[in-house]
């Protein structure tokens, strides 16, 4: 049940991670953490997480996002979110995390938003 698929591609100098599935405590949240770890260890990483195929995320998944966001920023990098589904969007509103993340609906616009 804990399935999250992550495919990585690069557009310009932005690493885009296309996420598919559920980001929940266990295998899925661990997989997300491991996938984001390299970006937190390199300077000035530019990472865009595509949520268009994410069915839902729990508090553990939100915690991984916050943690990765802070770690990447400490190295001078940026982490942005793309195409939130309704359920994920609602969770970011409830938790006020929409005030933390830069969120976009359009991929080209999101890529252009990186400094």
């Amino acid at each position: 049940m804990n399935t999250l698929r992550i495919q990585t591609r690069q557009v310009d100098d932005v690493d885009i991670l296309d996420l598919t599935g559920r980001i929940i405590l266990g295998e899925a949240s661990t997989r997300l953490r491991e996938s984001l770890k390299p970006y937190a260890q390199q300077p000035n990483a530019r990472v865009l997480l595509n949520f268009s195929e994410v069915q839902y995320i729990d508090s553990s998944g939100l915690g991984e996002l916050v943690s990765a966001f802070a770690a990447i920023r400490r190295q001078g990098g940026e982490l942005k979110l793309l195409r939130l589904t309704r359920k994920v969007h609602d969770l970011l509103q409830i938790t006020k995390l929409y005030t933390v993340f830069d969120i976009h609906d359009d991929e080209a616009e999101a890529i252009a938003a990186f400094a």
Partner: protein
Amino acid sequence: MVESKHEVLRLESRLESVDRAQTQAQYFASEAGFSEADRHEVAMAVREIVINAIAHGNAYDPAKRVKLEFELTPAELVIEIQDEGAGFDPNHQPDPLAPENLMRQSGRGMLLARAFMDQIDFYPSPHGTSVRMCKHRPSLDGRGCSHSGPGANRE
């Protein structure tokens, strides 16, 4: 849509139990006639509180169980989750919405459960914490959940 139904599960203190609890919550929410969005919210609320019970309450102790009780009445769906931990005071947890806590990695589970259910009450004790959650059924919009202490559901 089912009028009344009751079930008690005793879950082992391991992560696999969370999926079982979520699946059963979805089943009861479906029997209650909730919309897809409400079924999702009930399932997520159960997921968050069961994770707390297993991870923080029982600390993954294989000797301890989490009791999960569903009570569907004509008016509401009541779900009670009870761990065997040392108990905790929900009023003294850091506010996850406070600016200084927004970047904390954990502490949002109760916030989400509160947002998803109509009512949620915590009953801590030295022998464990009981969490009673309620959502009223769609045919009875406007009516609040009945209020009663832990163990009010049938055994």
